[in-house]
């Protein structure tokens, strides 16, 4: 490792630690949230440095973009910290210091023990199975074929989160802007073609290079949130599209389950895709998952059920 890369790594790590500190301990909440968004962006750089480009793509779109939008919306609706009743409970003054000491000891022990953690290293086994999966990129193969059960459960968890958020009440009414902002619909109109092109490219690319359903769904979801901000998604609020909206939200999970049950019928094991159908099955599941993730991210941003 040359001096230049060492310097770059040091700079990245110092930036991460400083931004994390600011995100956790700044007295003003808005500043803490902005530092957190920058922390996620720097994290995306660290993923590139650690040779994990799929995670970098997903982190840049979801971590820095969608989480930032969710936090800022919540921040605008919470009362200021000085309001009475915003403190759930008071920690006992004397228990704080043993707790901090224990956390420091725990972190030190983790840092010392990390070199002894086992590294099973399944790279060779995955490469051996790569031809049978129907795609040529290792991460996509593991995500959608070898460990497809985890992805199925994850889409189900996301749908569960949408159900939780929607059951809390009607969608939050957006605050009226202080002045008329013609720039925002113009921005969304200008960027809309790119927000459709880039996810398609990422989806297609996922078969042979870093990309795939999750970054594509995240970018599409971020574009959808921009549209929601510019108030151009009127059809979601109308009651006659209620059924269609719910069908679209469930479509990803339903298609995934159908593929799994089809595998059960054809080969006798749930989610075992036969090799001849693997490529088209993975493509269909990827498209449905990406669209569903995008719609679910928009549904989470609404913070409540639309159309009521």
């Amino acid at each position, binding site marked *: 490792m040359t001096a230049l890369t060492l310097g770059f790594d040091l700079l990245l790590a110092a930036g991460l630690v400083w931004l994390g500190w600011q*995100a956790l301990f700044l007295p003003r909440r808005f500043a803490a*949230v902005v530092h957190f968004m920058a922390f996620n962006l720097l994290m995306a750089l660290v993923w590139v440095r650690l040779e994990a480009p799929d995670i970098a793509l997903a982190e840049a779109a*979801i971590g820095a973009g969608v989480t930032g939008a969710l936090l800022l919306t*919540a921040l605008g609706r919470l009362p200021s910290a000085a309001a009475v009743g915003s403190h759930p409970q008071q920690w006992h003054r004397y228990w704080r210091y043993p707790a901090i000491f224990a956390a420091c000891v*725990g*972190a030190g022990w983790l840092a010392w023990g990390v070199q002894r953690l086992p590294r099973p290293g399944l790279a060779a086994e995955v490469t051996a199975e790569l031809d049978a999966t129907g795609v040529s990129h290792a991460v996509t193969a593991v995500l959608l074929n070898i460990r497809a059960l985890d992805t199925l459960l994850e889409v189900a968890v996301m749908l569960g989160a949408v159900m939780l958020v929607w059951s809390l009440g009607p969608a939050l009414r957006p605050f009226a802007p202080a002045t008329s902002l013609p720039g925002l619909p113009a921005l969304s109109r200008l960027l809309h073609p790119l927000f459709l092109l880039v996810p398609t490219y990422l989806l297609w690319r996922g078969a042979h290079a870093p990309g795939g359903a999750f970054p594509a769904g995240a970018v599409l979801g971020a574009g959808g949130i921009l549209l929601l901000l510019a108030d151009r998604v009127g059809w979601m609020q109308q009651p006659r599209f209620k059924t269609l909206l719910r069908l679209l939200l469930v479509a990803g999970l339903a298609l995934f389950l159908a593929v799994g049950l089809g595998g059960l019928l054809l080969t006798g094991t749930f989610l075992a895709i036969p090799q001849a159908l693997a490529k088209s099955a993975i493509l269909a599941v990827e498209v449905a998952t990406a669209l569903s993730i995008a719609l679910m991210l928009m549904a989470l941003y609404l913070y409540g059920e639309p159309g009521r």
Partner: protein
Amino acid sequence: MSLYYAVVAALLCGMAVIGLFRTDDLLRRILALNVLASATFLLLVTLARTDSGIDPVPHVMVLTGIVVAVSTTAAALGLTIRAHERRHEESQ
């Protein structure tokens, strides 16, 4: 280099846990949990770099984890907003 980033991850873990204790505010606790999640993902990915190539399974776990973390954050923020709304209504 992976050892170096693993130490950074442990440091962030400790800071996030301390941040979780030190604050009473719900929004800051959600931020602390997110930083803790990021530190755990960093730790997982540093374990994926072995001598015989890069292991894709921890990468898949982290990808799944990122999406689950954003869903959990959104649900927690929704609950926080409604809790404050209720408290505001009750106090009026």
